[in-house]
C-alpha cells in the first residue's frame, strides 16, 4: 500500500501583475478541486476515476481555460479537447474539436471505455457524445465575455495569444519565484498584462500505487479552427504508466515537439531518474525555446512540479495531510 497523492494545475504562465482577487479566486478553485479529489481517494476510488472527477470540476468552473471559459478560435467559437490515461494498463482516451459537450474529459473517458478507439474528434466525437447521452449545451455556454474581449485584442494585434507568459531571462524551473517587478512580458510579440485562463489537469496515484492523468483545454486564443494542441495527445500533454502520471500545460507546440509527458516517464523508466529529477531534466533540456509546465506523481506517492514560465497555478495533497496551493 502506498500513500495516495494528487496534484492539479490550472495552467503555466501567470502575469505577475495579476490582481490579488483573481489569484485568490484561482486558489479557491484549486483548493476545492483538491478536496474533491482527496475525498474520492479516501473513499477508495481508483486513480482514473479521481482524475476524471477533478478535471470535471475544473472544466465546470469558468476561471480556467477548459469547458466553460475556454479560449476562443479565430471564429469566436469554442473547440475543446481533453485526454485521460489510466497508468494501470496504459489505457487512454482523447477527444478534440468538441463544441457542445459540457465535460470533455468525461467524453474522453467514454472513448476509452466504450469505443474500440482511443481518440475521436470533431463531428465524429460530437456524434459519439450524443450516442452516449452525455450532457450537451449550446456552444455559447462556454463563451465568456472576458474571452470575447481577449479574442478581440488578439485579433487587433493579429497574433495568437498563448495562455502563458514569457518569464524573465534566467528563470529556472520549479523554484521560479517572482524575478523582477515589471517584466516586459511578451507572447508572440504581443505585450500582455491581462490575466488569461489556462489549461487544466490532474494527476493521481491511489493507495494501490496506480497512477492516472487527465488534461482538458480550450486551446489557444485566436487559434485556427481545427487546430489541435498537446492536451489530447497521449505522450505530449498527458501520460500515465506503471511508474508515474504527468499532465502538461503551456505552449502546446513546444510540448508536442518534446513529447513532454512521455519524456518525464521515460526518464524515470529508462534512465532511472527520480520523479523530480526527471521533471527538472525534461523542463530544462527538452523544451528548447518553449515555455511550459507540468505536474507529476509517481507510483511511490511522490509529487513533483516543473515549469519554466513565471508561475503555474497548481496544488497538491497527500495522504499524510499535506496540502498546498500555490501560483509562483
Amino acid at each position, binding site marked *: 500500500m502506498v500513500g495516495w497523492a494528487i496534484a492539479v494545475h490550472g495552467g503555466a504562465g501567470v502575469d505577475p501583475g495579476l490582481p490579488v482577487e483573481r489569484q485568490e479566486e484561482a486558489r479557491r478553485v484549486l483548493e476545492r478541486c483538491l478536496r474533491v479529489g482527496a475525498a474520492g481517494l479516501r473513499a477508495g476510488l481508483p486513480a482514473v476515476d479521481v482524475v476524471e472527477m477533478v478535471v470535471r470540476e475544473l472544466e465546470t468552473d469558468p476561471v480556467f481555460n477548459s469547458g466553460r471559459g475556454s479560449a476562443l478560435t479565430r471564429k469566436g467559437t469554442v473547440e475543446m479537447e481533453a485526454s485521460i490515461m489510466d497508468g494501470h494498463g496504459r489505457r487512454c482516451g482523447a477527444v478534440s474539436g468538441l463544441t457542445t459537450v459540457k465535460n470533455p474529459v468525461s467524453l474522453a473517458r467514454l472513448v476509452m471505455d466504450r469505443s*474500440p*478507439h482511443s481518440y475521436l474528434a470533431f463531428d465524429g466525437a460530437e456524434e459519439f457524445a450524443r450516442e452516449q447521452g452525455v450532457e450537451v449545451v449550446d456552444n455559447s455556454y462556454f463563451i465568456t465575455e472576458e474571452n470575447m474581449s481577449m479574442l478581440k485584442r488578439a485579433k487587433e494585434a493579429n497574433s495568437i495569444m498563448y495562455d502563458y507568459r514569457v518569464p524573465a531571462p534566467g528563470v529556472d524551473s520549479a523554484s521560479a519565484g517572482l524575478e523582477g517587478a515589471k517584466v516586459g512580458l511578451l507572447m508572440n510579440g504581443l505585450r500582455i498584462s491581462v490575466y488569461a485562463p489556462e489549461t487544466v489537469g490532474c494527476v493521481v496515484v491511489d493507495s494501490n500505487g496506480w497512477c492516472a492523468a487527465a488534461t482538458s483545454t480550450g486551446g489557444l486564443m485566436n487559434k*485556427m479552427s481545427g487546430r489541435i494542441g498537446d492536451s489530447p*495527445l497521449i505522450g505530449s500533454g498527458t501520460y500515465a504508466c506503471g511508474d508515474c502520471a504527468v499532465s502538461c500545460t503551456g505552449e502546446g507546440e513546444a510540448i508536442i515537439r518534446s513529447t513532454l509527458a512521455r519524456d518525464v516517464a521515460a526518464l524515470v523508466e529508462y534512465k532511472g531518474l527520480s520523479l523530480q529529477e526527471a521533471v527538472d531534466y525534461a523542463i530544462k533540456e527538452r523544451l528548447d525555446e518553449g515555455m511550459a509546465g507540468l505536474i507529476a506523481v509517481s507510483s511511490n506517492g511522490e509529487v513533483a512540479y516543473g515549469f519554466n514560465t513565471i508561475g503555474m497555478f497548481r496544488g497538491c495533497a497527500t495522504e499524510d495531510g499535506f496540502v498546498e496551493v500555490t501560483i509562483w
Partner: protein
Amino acid sequence: MGWAIALHGGAGDIPLSFPVEGRAPREAALRHCLELGVAALKANRPPLDVVELVVRELENSPCFNAGKGSVLTTNGTVEMEACIMDGNTKKCGAVSGLSTVVNAISLARLVMERTPHIYLAFDGAEAFAREQGVETAHSSHFITPENVERLKNAKEAKRVQIDFTEPIKGTIPSSIGDSQIGTVGCVAVDGHGILASATSTGGLVNKMAGRIGDTPIIGAGTYANSYCAVSATGKGESIIQATVARDVAALMEYKGLSLKEAAAYVIERTPKGNVGLVAVSANGEVTMPFNTTGMFRACATEDGYSEIGIWPSGINGDLEYPNK
C-alpha cells in the same frame, strides 16, 4: 555513417497465401518508391524532402492504405491523416480527417511550415488546404473497389478491421482475426546524420467517423530527433498507448541501446500482431522489425545494401537483394 532510407506499406496479418496478383503490384510499388528515395538522397536532397516525396508516391499508389486506396470509415467515406517530423529541428506537422486532399503528407508539411501550429484536423484542415491551393479531388479518386469490399465484409463481421485480410473473396477466416495493416511511411537519414520521418494513412476499416489513430500523433506513429527517425504501423490504439516511435528514440538516448536493440525492445513489449516499424539512426543504420505476420517494407543504405520484403527474412516468397 552514410545515408539510409527505409519505407513501409503497412504491417499486418498478410497471409503467406497472399495471391501473386496482389503481391506483384505492391512489391513493384515498394521498389519504385525505394528507387525514388535513394535517387533523391544521392542527389543530396534533405531527408525531410525525401520522406515527403516517397510518402507522396505511396499515397498515390492504390495498393496501400493511404491517399488513393485508403480504407473506409463506417460511413463509407475516407478520413485521411498524416504526419511529418524533422529530426534536426524537431519541427513537425500533422493533419487528420482529410477527405479531399490528394497528398495528406504534403498538407502536414505545410501545417509545419506555414502555420504557427503543428496539427490541423477535419474542416479546419480542409479549409487550410484550400487556402494553400493544394491538389484536391473528389472522393472517387481515393475509394477503390477493394476497400468498398473490405468495408462490406467488416460490417458483416461487425468489427473494425485493421485492413488486410483475405475477404476480397468474401471469406473472413476467424483464425486471422483483426489483421493489422494500414499506413505507409518513410524514414531517412543523410550523410550528416540529419533525420526525418513521415507517415500517412486512411486508418482502420469501418472506423468510427472522427477516429484518429497513431499516425498523426507525434511520438506514437511518427517521430524523429537527433538519434533516429521512426515510422510505425499496425493497430493505432496499441501504438498510441505504447508511444512506439518516441520510445525507440528514448531507449537509445536514455538507456544507451542501439537502434536495433531499441526497436526490438519496443516491438517485443507491444502485444503480438499489433505493430511494425521502420527506423534509421543518425549513423546510417536501418531496422525494420514487426510482430505481425508480415510488413510491406523496403530499405537501402549507402554501402549498397538493399532489401524489399513482406514476411520475416527467410520465409518463402520473400525478396531480398543483398547486393544492389
